[in-house]
């Protein structure tokens, strides 16, 4: 049975308009190169439960901390510091230590993401947290610690690695216009690549993200960003889709249509063979998410965070092995499965 037929037998895909040409192409591609196992990630950043997967109910608890609270000097058009809002503020190293300790005791904390708002140069002031990270890692060696590095040079990246950070994440941008217009930032694509290179020189697992539709909902620098990432020994690549509702009213974002999103999926799967390619938690909801998730499953992604209802069934129906982990897809609780080889 073809994939279109398989999908149409699964609720809610039975009533959704999947693109037949695209699905057939993905199916043909999969025949050439069989799809591997698929892992669903359900981290505790938010409450999640579907009929197919239960939330983790505090198990393996994995929260995000912001070292600047809700403050960000950059205020990019796609985010407006809204991503920081639900994070737990940790405005001093002492505050971070205390909150992490408490959560280890009370919630079986298994790791955390350290994030924060940027300065005007898209750098986050992590330096004074190195001591706190090292202390926490010494006290609780089991913790997996990730950092949203933003732009960073080698010495600063090395300090984070030496403190014990396991994973560094960075949003890769492949278009100068996007850096200028959306980020209001006087930096270049080369600066982003340099940060990626600096992170890759450390012992940290590097997990770049590409925000699909970052240029006001249009595809612009995504393919270039993929090209750059393909040259570095990253531990995983995470794709997310821009969330238009964070944007300011005078600079609205379009929602990139799922078929366009899928173009990047296909390109990513073709370019990145040396590391898992995963669909991250940030993406528009509703029907868009259902269709996007279906394409990610069919494109052969290795992981999907917070899958839409029905996606697990779809993955099984097209013959993919599935499992679940209650961690952030960039981090994993047992490490990432990426092959740490440089593809360059």
């Amino acid at each position, binding site marked *: 049975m073809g994939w279109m037929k398989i999908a149409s037998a699964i609720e809610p895909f039975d009533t959704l308009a999947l693109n037949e040409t695209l699905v057939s192409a993905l199916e043909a591609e999969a025949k050439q190169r069989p799809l591997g196992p698929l892992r669903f990630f359900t981290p505790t950043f938010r409450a999640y439960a579907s009929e197919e997967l239960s939330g983790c109910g*505090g198990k393996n608890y994995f929260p995000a901390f912001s070292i600047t609270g809700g403050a960000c000097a950059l205020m990019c058009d796609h985010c407006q510091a809204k991503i920081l809002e639900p994070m737990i503020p940790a405005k001093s190293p002492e505050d971070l230590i*205390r909150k992490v*300790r*408490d959560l280890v*005791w*009370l*919630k*079986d904390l298994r790791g955390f993401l350290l994030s924060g708002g940027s300065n005007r140069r898209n750098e986050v002031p992590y330096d004074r947290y190195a001591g706190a990270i090292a202390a926490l890692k010494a006290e609780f*060696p089991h913790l997996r610690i990730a950092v949203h590095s933003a732009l960073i040079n080698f010495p600063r990246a090395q300090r984070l690695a030496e403190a014990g950070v396991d994973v560094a994440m960075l949003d890769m941008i492949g278009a100068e216009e996007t850096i200028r217009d959306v980020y209001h930032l006087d930096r270049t694509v080369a600066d982003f690549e340099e940060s990626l290179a600096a992170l890759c020189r450390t012992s940290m697992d590097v997990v770049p993200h590409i925000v699909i539709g970052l240029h006001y909902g249009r595809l612009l620098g995504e393919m270039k960003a993929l090209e750059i990432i393909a040259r570095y020994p990253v531990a995983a690549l995470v794709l997310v889709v821009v969330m238009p509702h964070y944007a300011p009213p005078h600079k609205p974002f379009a929602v990139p249509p799922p078929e366009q999103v899928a173009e990047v999926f296909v390109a990513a799967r073709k370019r990145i063979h040396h590391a898992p390619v995963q669909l991250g938690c940030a993406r528009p909801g509703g029907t868009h998410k259902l269709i996007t998730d279906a394409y990610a499953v069919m494109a052969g992604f290795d992981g999907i965070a917070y899958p839409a209802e029905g996606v697990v069934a779809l993955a099984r129906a097209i013959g993919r092995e599935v499992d679940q982990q209650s961690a952030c897809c960039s981090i994993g609780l047992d490490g990432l499965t990426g092959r740490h080889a440089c593809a360059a």
Partner: protein
Amino acid sequence: MSCLDMPRHPVPDFLNKTPRDYNDAESMRPRVPSPVPLEARNGARVKAQSAAPHGVYLPNNNILTPAMRSPAYVQMSTAAAITLGIMKGMMHRTSCTRCLNLLLTYPEGCRANCAYCGLARHREAERNYADRNFIRVDWPAVPYDDVLDIMEAGGDGGRFHRMCISMITHPNSDADTRVVLRRWVERIHHVPVSILSNPTTMTRQDVQELKDLGAEIFTVALDAANPEIFDRTRGRGVASPHSWQKYWEILRAAAEIFGPEKFGAHIIVGMGESDYDVLTQVQTIRDMGGHSHMFAFFPERGSLMDHLPPVPRPQWRRVQLARYLIDYRGHRLERMRFDEAGRLIDFGYPQDELQAIIDAGTAFRTSGCPGKEAADISACDRPYGDSPPSDIASYPFPLKRRDIKRVRAQLEQGLPLGPHEPGR
């Protein structure tokens, strides 16, 4: 092991030393814990050995501590185990307790680190969780099914007037408390249940759910009588996760959800607070509709305050009596007088009535959730939980004339009570 045999060493014997008037904040500082080796953290030793439990586990019994976990297992006080016939033993001047006190149990133990408590996390360094002393006694671990079977068959001889679930601080304790409660309510209809809560992991909704499942009384172990002592003994001062604010949030929720006479708070006297601090909390809780359950500070062996003196009896007796007046005689804090240090110097209560209350002795009995006897007599009598039998702080039985005489002398050491006609 009964509480009579409980080794006191290395607790120094403060009793009979130069009389102190009260335990001041300066001298009541907890000591710093020794570091816990990585291989001992989070119950790692017990989990690594993973010995399967067989029936009742008696603490410190020279066998491997098995990996026991609620809701399959619960711990109970030595007094409760004697009353239930699970352990042999004799208690000083009493044969039973009226309250079946249960503690949830996990190899990882309680994740809090309260300075006065024998269950505190820092004790991982020297003792597995199920082997730790708490309020001066051992807590045997018993399969919960056995407890229910014995109770259903009337094995306690009707002696238990109440059951209490102590939640301890653990990621699973909210869920497991609900299981233990639900199973009790389904099978044991004649013994009401109290919850000794763990506010730190709870929401208002959790409080509501326990009420809906059939808990009768909800209590919060505030323990410290002011925010500074709280933070020092069970918050940041000892790397423990509790906060005064959160405890009061849950206590207020309990007042609304459980209603008058059906909620309460524990307060320990003698940790460096003033009498005024304690009685302010007592009055506030009474105004909300609840009751205060008092504990005399005792240096628990192995705790971070095991080097400190127990609460001097004069301080303890006057606070105990004042609390009784507020909780059960409609008296008010505003009518009492205190000196600049916050010590109670005048009860502001008619002298003859005060003497009668002292003579009745109820004020000096263990305080806690009531049983079937009277509203002001606690089912939870915790025999010798806050003192040795040689110098009883909270009497787990009605006071005899010689006890009253002793209590009166202790009261008068700190606070002249005026003329007294013996035998009234």
